[in-house]
């Protein structure tokens, strides 16, 4: 699966990274959730928000930094295209701390899907790469071929 992220997602992710004390584990927990998962696992992962043909959007729970399990962790809003094997990260928010968000309004998904479509067509999506040696998640904007 090829992992891609919208500009909005990258902005939110980097915002959380800056709050090291509260959200410092995000790179590790994000990588643990997605890096080694097979295509079928990725397709079925999380609470299904929307399904249409080869596309599935979901809300995925990521573990917290405080040891309280997934409940106080992060939520990732994703979109998978089974046909092209592309996994899109659309939004991320924590359940606790400074940037806490209680729930996700499905109306927001509309905005995120528009962003994803526009950025894919413009070739400005970010490529997400998991670096196990440096224990980092790299998000690099590079010209990607629209599928």
């Amino acid at each position: 699966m090829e992992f891609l992220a919208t500009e909005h997602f990258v902005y939110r992710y980097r915002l959380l990274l800056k709050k090291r004390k509260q959200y410092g584990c995000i790179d590790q927990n994000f990588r643990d959730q997605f890096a080694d998962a097979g295509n079928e696992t990725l397709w079925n992962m999380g609470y299904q928000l929307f399904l249409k043909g080869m596309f599935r959007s979901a809300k995925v729970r990521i573990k917290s930094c405080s040891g309280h399990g997934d409940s106080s962790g992060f939520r990732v809003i994703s979109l998978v295209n089974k046909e092209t094997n592309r996994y899109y990260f659309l939004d991320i928010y924590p359940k606790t701390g400074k940037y806490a968000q209680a729930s996700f309004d499905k109306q927001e998904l509309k905005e995120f899907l528009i962003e994803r479509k526009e950025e894919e067509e413009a070739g400005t999506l970010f490529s997400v790469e998991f670096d196990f040696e440096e224990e980092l998640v790299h998000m690099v904007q590079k010209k990607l071929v629209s599928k």
Partner: protein
Amino acid sequence: MNATGTTFKEAASDVIVNANSGNYNAPAVLTKEEKMNHLLDEISSTNREWRAWHKMMLDLFKEFDQISNYSIEDEEDEKIARDFIDTIQNLYKRLAASFSKYSKMKFVQQTSGKCLEDMRLIIKDFREYQEDFKSSFFPTKEDKELEEELAGLL
């Protein structure tokens, strides 16, 4: 039916039966007097019970995620879906009652703060799942319109 061959009825009923049997109930929090009379290993065992319950809740949420893949096909599914949503509501109401009771106990606040915080977060998750399931299984006119809009944005 999903990829593993489990029907919606089987997946949802499993949760309903377990909930009705009290299998998801939170363990008791020891009162001051009880705690004073307990030996250290017994207190540790209570902590283990809490950890086990917390893990069970997280596993239950994974099951919820899988159940979200089903759609309502007929009247029987509709009935099961209603029971399922009611079950989630009963679960979090029961938990909320326990939380309210425990959080008023000063001694519990001082010694079992993490248990209470876990409980509070789990209750919030149950509410969120209940809302999500309601909108997935019984979409309103607005939900259906939104689905159509989303389909046009892929």
